[in-house]
């Protein structure tokens, strides 16, 4: 039997008090196994990003249990040595007052003992090459001097630097054009094969999720309304929300938006 990476039982996360009270993640039970690619698919505000932050240990569940490798997340630094994330908006992810390179090196901060300076530089170089960026191209450059696609690749380079066991990819392709998107997915697959990583892929695009995942979780209003292998979910959806998500994919031969 494969090891369980994440194991959530009756997990709830709510915010605010009184009138502002809202439940972002509502009574979720699931598990993610080692080496899987799982996609969390859902529309805006369905709670998928909150769930991602719970996996990163940035939020604690309000009730229920949320386990990583069988234990609750207590030591954050230790957790982040194994679980890392790629965020949605590459432009806001880096501190604009420091060079990209120094920020890639800053990622070594999660280690108890940093490798030698030479080794850090080498690992940064190798990571940059892994995402097809020549180290000289970003030498001395600041975040605002790069394009969106380059920035997104820098976020991935950070993952190549750290080589975590689990990657939470929170809509890594939503801010870049279709051409760059294919590249990004390529790099994700490369990571998966090189490091035999577990990837949690968060997206609103069920079509994209279908191509990359081993399993799909469909989320709606904080609940997982359907889960299963991509073929099964897409060919014989059981939930109306899944049907809705499938219908929202634009199709060349079908009327998509009804014009008034």
């Amino acid at each position: 039997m494969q090891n369980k990476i994440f194991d959530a039982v009756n997990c709830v996360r709510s915010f605010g008090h009184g009138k502002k009270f809202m439940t972002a993640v509502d009574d979720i039970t699931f598990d993610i196994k080692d080496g899987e690619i799982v996609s969390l698919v859902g529309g805006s505000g369905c709670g998928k990003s909150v769930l991602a932050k719970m996996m990163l240990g940035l939020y604690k569940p309000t009730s229920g249990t949320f386990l990583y490798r069988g234990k609750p997340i207590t030591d954050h630094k230790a957790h982040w040595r194994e679980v890392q994330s790629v965020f949605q908006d590459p432009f806001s992810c880096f501190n604009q007052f420091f060079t990209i390179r120094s920020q890639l090196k800053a990622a070594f901060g999660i280690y108890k003992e940093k490798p030698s300076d030479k080794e850090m530089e080498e690992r940064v170089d190798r990571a940059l090459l892994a995402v097809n960026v020549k180290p000289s191209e970003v030498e001395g450059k600041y975040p605002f001097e790069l394009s969106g696609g380059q920035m997104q690749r820098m976020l991935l380079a950070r993952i190549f630097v750290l080589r975590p066991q689990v990657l939470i990819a929170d809509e890594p392709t939503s801010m870049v054009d279709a051409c760059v998107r294919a590249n990004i997915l390529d790099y994700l697959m490369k990571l998966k094969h090189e490091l035999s990583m577990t990837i949690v892929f968060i997206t609103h695009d069920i079509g994209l999720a279908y191509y990359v995942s081993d399993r799909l979780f469909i989320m709606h209003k904080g609940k997982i309304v359907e889960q299963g292998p991509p073929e099964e979910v897409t060919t014989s959806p059981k939930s109306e929300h899944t049907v809705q998500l499938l219908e929202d994919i634009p199709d060349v031969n079908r009327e998509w938006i009804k014009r008034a």
Partner: protein
Amino acid sequence: MKLFKNLLKSPMFVFGASLFSLVLFAAFVVPFFYDISQVTRVGNPYDAPSGKYLLGLDHLGRDYVVLLLRGLRSSLYVGLLAGVIATVLGTLIGLIAGFKGGLIDDVLSALTNLFVVIPQLVLLILISTSIGESGRSLTLIAVIIGLTGWTWSARSVRAQSSAIKSKDHISLARLNGDGGIRILLVHILPYLFSYVFMVFIILISAGILSESAISMIGLGPVDTQSLGTILNDAKNNGALTDGYWYAFLPATGIIISIALSLYLINTSMDGVFNPRMRK
């Protein structure tokens, strides 16, 4: 550098900066050519301006140019010291309140609001009176002004820091293993620099004005002259009723020039920095 070029395009900045340079020139360059080391009697009380004493003499027959230059230096010193204290204190309180949120934010915000509603001048008067004649030095007054004037910087910095806190680069910094203090100083404070700098300029100006105000009503420093004490002397010795304009107009003019120039610099910077974060 580009920022500076844009600043130079603003007539408001050019005027403000020139005026302030003039003030600095008077305070730090003129004394090399005009001896201000001695404050002594050189003529009769309220002698009118003459070729030798350009701005006349005060009620004790002392040269007003000497008094004003010394007073200007004291006022700038008070403004700078009070400005630094108020800016550092306010920025720290604002940063922590905005970043930590929750109970710490509530407590610090309550403290800030408490200081906002107490009029600073009343507080200054009360503290200055209770210290008494003997202890009131220039430095002490600057410290008091600084310790009571930090509220504005705290409020504005708090708002900015709580807005930046939720940005992605903060989450990423946490995933890099950075601690709270490092995040505050490295990932939040730099984004607020232009803002803090503008607050600092306004607080210098406010410090100079506050010092003049309490000195003019007789609660100023006893160990030296300041622009406020010159006004206080003029008021106490009949200059206003007897029409000795040179006793109070120059000092008032200098105070207004400093405050106006700093205000203009601040306003023009506001337009140029155009912080995207303040949308």
